[in-house]
């Protein structure tokens, strides 16, 4: 068998990331059931252990029409597009959905979704904000237990401990491969464009994780074999909920900005932490959530941990600046912004905040700001 080139592999990831419908149909045609996993922190291992395919539903680029009936305009597009997809029949082939309720937008979404799409088996998931104390871990475990039961009913089979342990292993391997890729992509920006970087990470949401890891391992080993890069452009860190807009990412590429690290919910934040070793796999899953941190969505008694984390990530990865993709109408992100900006200013790290949503059609203002930001970064080099 001949090895694919880096370019061929990246294009393959891009094809998958751009065609979730084809992916879903492929799994269904192969006799699999698929479960829609909404953001954030869905224990996908349970879905895999039930021999079903977890399928990420993080909204989609498009226009909101039918869902308008259910939402005031000031709801983020992730929530609105999630329902729009369902109302337009795009989620019909799923055997169920798991919907967390961790922010004030997702909570009403869960209830609107339930009443608008009664035919789709619905699994509600309430993560506890006090996640670390033993009672918090217990609570997460009981929530995951009820998710497990409902998945078993849909799959028509029990989820065994050994199947779950195996799923955890597959997922930890996937997380490790994705973390490694993020590092390598940052070290070889001339080979991995911002769009390709996003495609590799996004495709994981539409693929069986073992398949994704196999393909990614091949890519990683080829990237590792490349000579050291001599990147002349600037290096940035991306912060936000989503960073998958090709239009926006192309602007970064046009102005020679390489993404060397991210703290994006759909990207690194989703695979930062492995599921720890524990005899009981359900406890292990709950402990993973207990260990999550540095997130605008998660209760942080110290208030400033994510801003500090972003500063550290920026420094550790040699990024010269931070591009904050601020999801329109995302309260958690907007409320955190002043402390994030303050932390970056204090650390003398230039940053720019770009308003973004999945209905965005005009990128002129974003281009103006990013182009000027590239000038700022190059004048500081």
């Amino acid at each position, binding site marked *: 068998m001949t090895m694919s080139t880096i370019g061929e592999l990246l294009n393959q990831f891009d094809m998958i990331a751009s065609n979730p419908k084809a992916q879903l149909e492929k799994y269904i045609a192969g006799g699999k059931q698929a479960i829609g996993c909404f953001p954030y922190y869905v224990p996908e291992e349970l879905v895999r252990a039930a021999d079903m395919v977890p399928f990420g539903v993080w909204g989609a680029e498009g226009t909101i029409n039918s869902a308008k009936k259910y939402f005031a305009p000031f709801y983020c597009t992730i929530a609105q597009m999630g329902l729009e997809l369902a109302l337009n029949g795009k989620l019909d082939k799923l055997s169920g959905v798991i919907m967390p309720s961790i922010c004030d937008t997702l909570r009403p979404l869960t209830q609107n979704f339930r009443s608008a799409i009664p035919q789709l088996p619905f699994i509600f998931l309430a993560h506890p904000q006090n996640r670390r104390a033993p009672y918090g871990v217990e609570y997460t475990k009981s929530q995951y237990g009820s998710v497990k039961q409902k998945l078993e009913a849909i799959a028509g089979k029990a989820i065994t401990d050994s199947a779950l342990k195996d799923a955890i292993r597959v997922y930890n391997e996937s997380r490790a491969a994705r973390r490694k890729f993020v590092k390598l992509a940052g070290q070889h920006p001339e080979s991995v464009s911002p769009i390709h970087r996003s495609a590799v990470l996004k495709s994981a949401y539409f693929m069986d994780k073992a398949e994704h890891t196999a393909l990614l391992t091949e890519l990683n080993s080829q990237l590792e074999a490349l000579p050291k890069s001599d990147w002349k452009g600037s290096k940035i860190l991306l912060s936000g909920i989503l960073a998958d807009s090709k239009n926006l990412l192309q602007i970064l590429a046009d102005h020679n900005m390489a993404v060397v690290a991210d703290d994006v919910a759909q990207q690194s934040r989703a695979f930062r932490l492995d599921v720890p070793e524990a005899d009981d796999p359900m406890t292990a899953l709950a402990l993973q959530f207990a260990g999550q941190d540095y997130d605008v969505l998660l209760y942080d008694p110290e208030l400033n941990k994510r801003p500090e984390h972003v500063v550290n990530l920026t420094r550790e990865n040699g990024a010269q600046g931070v591009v904050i993709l601020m999801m329109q109408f995302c309260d958690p992100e907007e409320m955190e912004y002043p402390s994030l900006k303050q932390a970056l200013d204090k650390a003398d790290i230039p940053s720019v905040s770009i308003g973004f949503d999945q209905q965005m059609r005009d990128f002129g203002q974003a281009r103006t700001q990013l*182009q000027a930001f590239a*000038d700022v970064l190059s004048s500081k080099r």
Partner: protein
Amino acid sequence: MSARTTMGIDIGSTASKCIILRETPNDGRENGREIVSKALIPFGAGTSGPVRVIDQALADCDYRKEDMAYILATGYGRNSVEAANFEMSELSCHACGAYFLFPGVRTVIDIGGQDVKVLRIGKGGALDTFVMNEKCAAGTGRFLEVMARVLEVKLEDMARLSAQSTERVNISSTCTVFAESEVISQLARNKNKRDIINGIHRSVAGRVAGLARRVGVEKDVVMTGGVAQNSGVLLALENELQTDIETSPLSQYVGALGAALLAFRKLGSLEA
């Protein structure tokens, strides 16, 4: 060798501006350049404005387009200027142009047709940080145009009328659409237009000041863009920010001026 010339073109959303610069004998100033021609056409991106503004700037001096050593385009419509050798973001151009006119500038507040930008200028005139309004016409030139129409006054008369205000009327909404109905209801209550205009100016100032505080306001503060011509907004903004604000008769040309200056810098790096 005859002095080299460059052209800066700023294609905004509502107007096109052009500046032609010539090198002057080195008089010890860092920016040994002089403006030989300038033009403004009140039509912006996607109209005949860009072509006309270049023609007019050339018609007003002894140069031809071929004489330009470098042409740099900026502004919302910068990508569609065929004559340009290069394009740059208007944020970088505004920083450069403002620094040329006001070497002590640290903060630039630019209110254009559909954008508000606030820039912080670092040492040597380099752009340090900036913020722009988002997707909303509140606080922009467009907002003032809509209000002038509702009030049946000319845009250029607003400053004069506002100065004659005797009673405080608050326009509380910062949304153009809601503010429009607020103005209509104030008119229905027989409030004086002069007082309403004054309230509109304070509403714009409040909105812009909020944005300015995000980058931090440091002296000297300079206001640029078409709205800088409106002394009513300028005054309201001075009050709101509690600082003097300078402006220039060239306020609308600052982007084009910066582009023409950066064109010289590009020439320098090409020759280096």
